[in-house]
C-alpha cells in the first residue's frame, strides 16, 4: 500500500486529506522533518487525546529503527523527573508511537538489549549522587556488566540545581555510560536548572522531531501522525512555578521561646481562590526579593548607581530592580564562579574552578559580593547580570493537611543568619519572611508536588518519623491528615533541636496527639541541654530493638531535614539497628534497606 493510505486513514476530513496528499510530495525531507517536529512539539491540548497511530505500514517500510515501544526511564528524588517522564510519554503517544515509562528502580536491566529507543530523565541528588532508585541501573551501565547497546538511540534530560557544584552529575553519568556502550545519541543532553520547564520544552521538542525523523521511510515519506490542532501558545492552566500565586499571610509566629538561639517561623498562608491543592509531603515554593542590605554594597563595589537601565530575563528595568527581583545574589553558584573566573581571567579563581573540592569550599558561606570584592573587575551592568543565575524560589515542606486547614497552607521556616568572612549573612528567603513580611502581606507561592514523600496508602501501616529541626514540618501535616482518619496505624516521632524549653517546635500539638492517640510514641533529643550532645540517632539507637520490630511489622520509615550530617548519621544508625537486631551482615542489612527503599518504605526528604 502506498503512503497516501496512511494519510487517508488519519483523522482528517476529505478536504484536508486531499490538501495533504497534494502538499507533502512537494516537500523535501528537511521540511518534512521540521514540520513534523514543529507540529508534535506543540503537543496535545489537555482535552484532545491522540489515538496511538496505526503504524502497521511502518513494518513494510525499512526504517532506521522504530521497532518496539520507546522506553522512558526516570530516576527521581522529589518527583520532578517522574512528572516529566509521564508528560513525555503523552507527547510521544500523540506522535503515534507507543511509549513505556519505567522507574529506574523497577526496570529490569536485562531488557535493555531489546530497547531501541531510550529516553533517560534523571535528577541529581545528594552531592552529585544519583537518586536512590537510579543507583543500581547506573552502576550496571557504568561498570562493565552491561552488554553493548549499539542498537540503541537515546536521549538524556538531566535535572539539577546549579547551586550544587556537581551540577546535573547523574544525567552526565548516564549520558557518558550509554555512549561508552555504543548507544547513539538521538538528541544532545540538556542540563536543567531548578526552573526546568523551558529547557524541558526544548529537549522534548527535539526528541519528538528526532522520533519523527526516525520514523520516516527511507523514501523520505512521512508516516507518523502530526497533531491535528492548529498551533497556539500554551496558556497556564493553573498557578505554578512560572506563574506563582500571591498568597496572603494569615499568621506568622516565631515558635522559639525567649532567649532561644534559633529563629523558626510558622507561617499560615491563604490559598483560597488559587485552586491550588496539595498533600502532606509536598513543598511550597516561595519567591523572595533580595535585601537592600546586600544589594546596596554590591552596587557600591561595582560603582553602579542602580538607576542604569538593563535587560534582565524579565525585560528592561533599572539595575536595582533587576537585582532585587530577577537574580540570585545568595548563595553564590558554581556557574557564577566559573563565568567570573573566565571574565576576569583571575589566576586564583582559575585554580579554584579547576578543582571541584576547592569550588565547594569556596562557595560555602560566600555570596556574589565576596566574589566581586575579592577579585575586583570593571564591567557593565549587563555583563554583571550575565554572571548571575535567575532568582530561584525556595522550597518549604508543607506543615499542614488540607483535610484540616482547607484553603490554608502552613510552612515552617528556619531563619538563616550567620557570620562568614567578617560579614553578617542573611538567607534571602528566610530572612525576607522573618524581617520584611507581616500578617496580611502577600508572597508569591506555588506548589511543588513530591510523590516520593507520602503517607502509606494503607492507613493501618505504622510510621516512624525522624525529623530534627524543620524536618518535623511534614510530620505535622501527616498527623493532621491521620487525625481525621477513623482507624490509623501506630506513629512514632523522633525530634531533635537545641534546647527543650525554647526549641520544642509544635510541642503542645505533639503532646495533644499523644493524648489522643494519633501519635503513639515520641522521643526527643535536645543537644544543648547537657554536657554531651545527644541527637535523634542516639534516641533511635536507645530504642533499636523496638524500632526494628516496627520495621518488621511493616512500618514506613521517614527521614526529613538537614541533608548535612543528620541524614547520613540517621541512615547509618538505621543500618546499624537492622544489623544488630536483625542479626544481619553488612550486606544483608544493605539489601534490607534497599528493599525498604524500592518498596517506598524508606522515604527521605532532605535538603
Amino acid at each position, binding site marked *: 500500500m502506498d503512503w497516501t493510505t496512511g494519510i487517508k486513514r488519519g483523522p482528517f476530513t476529505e478536504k484536508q486529506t486531499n490538501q495533504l496528499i497534494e502538499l507533502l510530495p512537494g516537500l523535501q525531507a528537511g521540511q518534512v522533518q521540521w514540520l513534523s517536529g514543529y507540529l508534535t512539539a506543540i503537543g496535545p491540548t489537555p482535552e484532545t487525546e491522540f489515538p496511538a497511530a496505526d503504524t502497521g505500514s511502518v513494518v513494510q517500510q525499512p526504517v532506521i529503527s522504530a521497532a518496539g515501544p520507546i522506553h522512558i526511564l526516570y530516576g527521581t528524588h522529589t518527583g520532578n523527573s517522574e512528572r516529566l517522564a509521564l508528560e513525555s510519554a503523552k507527547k510521544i503517544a500523540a506522535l503515534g508511537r507507543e511509549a513505556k515509562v519505567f522507574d529506574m528502580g523497577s526496570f529490569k536491566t536485562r531488557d535493555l538489549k531489546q530497547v531501541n529507543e531510550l529516553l533517560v530523565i534523571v535528577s541529581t541528588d545528594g552531592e552529585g549522587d544519583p537518586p536512590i532508585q537510579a543507583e543500581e541501573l547506573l552502576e550496571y551501565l557504568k561498570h562493565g556488566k552491561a552488554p553493548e547497546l549499539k542498537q540503541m538511540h537515546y536521549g538524556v534530560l538531566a535535572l539539577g540545581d546549579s547551586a550544587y557544584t556537581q551540577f546535573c552529575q547523574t544525567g552526565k553519568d548516564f549520558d557518558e555510560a550509554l555512549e561508552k556502550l555504543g548507544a547513539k545519541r538521538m538528541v544532545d543532553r540538556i542540563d536543567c536548572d531548578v526552573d526546568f520547564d523551558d529547557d524541558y520544552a526544548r529537549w522534548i521538542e527535539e526528541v519528538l522531531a528526532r522520533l519523527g525523523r526516525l520514523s520516516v521511510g527511507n523514501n523520505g515519506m512521512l508516516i507518523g501522525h502530526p497533531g491535528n490542532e492548529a498551533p497556539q501558545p500554551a496558556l497556564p492552566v493553573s498557578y505554578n512555578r512560572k506563574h506563582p500565586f500571591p498568597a496572603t499571610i494569615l499568621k506568622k509566629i516565631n515558635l522559639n*521561646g*525567649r532567649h532561644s538561639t534559633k529563629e523558626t517561623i510558622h507561617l499560615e498562608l491563604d490559598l483560597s481562590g488559587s485552586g491550588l491543592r496539595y498533600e502532606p509531603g509536598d513543598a511550597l515554593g516561595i519567591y523572595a526579593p533580595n535585601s537592600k542590605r546586600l544589594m546596596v554594597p554590591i552596587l557600591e563595589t561595582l560603582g553602579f548607581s542602580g538607576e542604569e537601565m538593563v535587560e534582565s530575563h524579565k525585560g528592561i528595568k533599572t539595575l536595582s530592580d533587576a537585582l532585587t527581583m530577577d537574580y540570585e545574589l545568595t548563595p553564590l553558584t558554581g556557574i557564577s564562579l566559573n563565568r567570573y573566573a573566565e571574565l576576569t581571567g583571575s589566576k586564583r579563581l582559575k585554580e579554584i574552578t579547576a578543582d571541584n573540592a576547592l569550588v565547594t569550599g569556596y562557595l560555602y558561606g560566600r555570596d556574589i559580593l565576596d566574589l566581586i570584592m575579592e577579585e575586583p573587575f570593571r564591567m557593565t551592568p549587563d555583563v554583571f547580570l550575565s554572571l548571575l543565575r535567575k532568582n530561584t524560589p525556595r522550597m518549604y515542606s508543607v506543615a499542614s493537611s488540607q483535610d484540616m486547614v482547607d484553603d490554608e497552607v502552613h510552612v515552617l521556616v528556619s531563619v538563616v543568619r550567620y557570620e562568614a568572612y567578617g560579614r553578617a549573612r542573611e538567607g534571602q528567603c528566610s530572612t525576607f519572611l522573618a524581617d520584611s513580611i507581616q500578617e496580611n502581606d502577600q508572597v508569591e507561592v506555588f506548589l511543588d508536588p513530591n510523590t516520593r514523600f507520602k503517607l502509606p496508602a494503607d492507613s493501618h501501616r505504622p510510621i516512624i518519623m525522624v525529623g530534627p529541626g524543620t524536618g518535623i514540618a511534614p510530620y505535622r501535616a501527616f498527623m493532621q491528615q491521620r487525625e481525621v482518619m477513623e482507624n490509623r496505624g501506630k506513629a512514632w516521632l523522633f525530634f531533635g533541636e537545641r534546647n*527543650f*524549653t525554647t526549641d520544642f517546635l509544635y*510541642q*503542645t500539638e505533639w*503532646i495533644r496527639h499523644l493524648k489522643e492517640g494519633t501519635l503513639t510514641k515520641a522521643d*526527643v533529643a535536645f543537644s544543648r541541654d547537657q554536657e554531651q550532645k545527644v541527637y535523634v540517632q542516639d534516641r533511635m539507637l536507645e530504642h533499636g530493638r523496638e524500632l526494628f520490630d516496627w520495621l518488621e511489622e511493616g512500618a514506613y520509615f521517614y527521614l526529613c531535614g538537614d541533608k548535612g550530617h543528620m541524614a547520613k548519621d540517621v541512615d547509618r544508625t538505621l543500618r546499624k539497628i537492622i544489623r544488630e537486631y536483625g542479626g544481619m551482615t553488612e550486606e544483608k542489612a544493605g539489601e534490607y534497606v534497599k528493599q525498604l527503599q524500592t518498596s517506598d518504605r524508606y522515604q527521605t526528604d532532605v535538603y
Partner: protein
Amino acid sequence: MSTSGEKHRQLFDDDNFYRMNTEVITEQEVSPEEHLKENSHYLRGRIVEGLKNPLTGSLPPDDVKILKFHGSYQQQDRDLEKERKKQKLEPLYQFMVRVRAAGGVVTPAQWLVLDELADAYGDATLKLTTRQSFQFHGILKRNLKKSIVTINDALLTTIAACGDVNRNVMCNPNPYRSAVHEQVYAYASRLSEYFKPRSKAYYEIWLDQEKVAGNQEEEPLYKSRYLPRKFKIGLVTPPNNDIDIFASDLGFIVVEEKGKLKGFNVCVGGGMGATFGDESTYPRLADVIGFIPPGDIIRVSETVIAIQRDFGDRLNRKHARIKYTIDDRGLEWFINELEHRLGAELQPVAPYHFDTNGDQYGWLQGINGKWFYTLFVENGRVRNDEKRNLKDALREVARVHQGDFRLTGNQNLIIGNVEPENKAAIEEVLKAYGLPGDSTPTGLRLNSMACVALNTCGLAFAEAERYLPSLIDKLDLIMKDNGLEREAITIRMTGCPNGCARSRLGEIGLVGRTVGKYNLYLGASHNGDRLNTLYREMLAEADILRELGAVIARFSSERQSGEHFGDFVHRIKIV
C-alpha cells in the same frame, strides 16, 4: 494548776502516752487530696516516672501535690503564659525549691553552695523567706534532682519544707541579747528533726538510696494521710517578735530566769491565710494557753500535732488549719483535749513582753562578745541588679567570714558570730559593694516586707515583691514631707490574702485583689500582737497614695510621743 515540775514529768513517762497520740483516724468523708496522700505509698507517688518524661517540663497534677512534701512546688513563669501558648509551647514549667534550716542558720560554706546553685540551675537569685528559709526559683525539671542532691551534699535539706506536715521550725536569730539562745536554737533544731516524715521516699527518689525491702514503712505520728494541712512551729525570745510568733500554728515563747531557760509559754492557733468572700476563712492570732518546762516541748508539740491530725478538717482544705479546729470546737475543748492526752495540766502563763516584730539593723555585739550585722535585704531577694550587686557582695562576705549566716523572719540577713578581729574585713567587703546602700533606707523601707507573688506564685492576684519597692519610693516622699523618713512603720504587701508576708500584721497592710488593685488594711500593732483592719478596698496606686497620704499627714501632726502608727489609727478611730 497544782502539779509540781517533778510530778509533771513522771506523768509524762506514761507508757500508753504514745498510744494516746496514735489514735486511728475515724472514717469520714474526705477531700481528694486525702486519698491522694493515702495512696502515695508514703509520698512516693509516681514522681520518679514523671521526672523521666522528656516531652514536658511538668509533672502530673497528683505528683505535683506529693512533690510539696519533698520541698518543691511546680510553678510556671506567668509572665510568659500567653506568649508561649501562642508559640505552641507548653508553659515554662519550673520548680521552686525551699531549703529548710531550723532557725535559718547556715555556715559560710553552705552559703557558697546555695549561691552557686542559684546560678547553675536557678534564676540567679536567692529568696530569703518570711520563715527563715531559702528559696530557689526557676529550676527546670531536668535539674531538680541535681539541685536537691547539691543541697543535701551541703548538709541541708528540702524535706518537708512544704506539704501537710510540720514545716521548718522558726526561731529568732538574734542571740546577742539572750544567754539562752543557743539552748532555744537547739530545741528548734530538735523539733525540726523530730517531726520530719519518717518515710524514706525522699532518700529513695532524690538520693538514690536503696528501698529497704520487706520492713513495712509507717508514720507513727502522721499516719498514711499525714496532716490535714501544713503545720508551723516557732520559738521566740522576747522582747523580739521578729518571727511573728502569733502567726504560728504552735508557738513557744521563751521564759528566762536569771539567764537560765525556765520554760515556754505555749500558744496555738495562729494563721494568716484567708480567702476573699469565704467567711469561714480568716486570719487568726495564736492564743497563749499556758506554760511548760523546757523538757516537755517535744511531747507537747507532738500532742498538739496529734490533736490537729485527728480533729482537723479533712474535707475542706481552706478550713483545715489548726486555727479552725480550735474555733470550731472552742479553745476550752482544745486545752482539755491537750491536757487529757498529756495526762497533765499546763502551768499558768508566765508574764512576757514584746516590743517589736521588726529587725534591728547594723552591728550589735552579742553577750557572747561576738558581733552580729543585720543587713536589710529588700523583700529577701538576694540578687545582682542595677542598684547593687548584693549577691556578689554576700559571696565575698561568705569567703572571708568564719561565723555563720542567719535569716530573720523579716526576710533579712544577719552576718552572725563575727569575731571582733574579723569585723573590719567584713565591713570592708560591705563598703566595697555599697551596702547597706548608698543612701541608707528610710524607716518605712526598713520595715517593709512583700511576698513573692508574680511571676512565679500560682496564687497571686497582683504584684508584691516586684512592686512594693517602687510604691515605697513614692510613699517615702510623703513621709519626708511629714518629717517621718526615719519613722519605723511596718508596711507589708502580699499578692493575695494568703498573707505569706504576714500582711495582716502590718501597721500598713496591702493585699492584692487583682493586677494593680489592693485592699488597704491599717492598725496592726508594732509588735505583732494585733491584726490590722480593712480600711479601704480595691485601691489603685493613686488611691493608695491619696488615702495613706491623708492618714500619714494626720499621724505626723496628731500622734502622741512614742505612739506607733498602728496604735494611732485606732486612737483616732479610723479603723
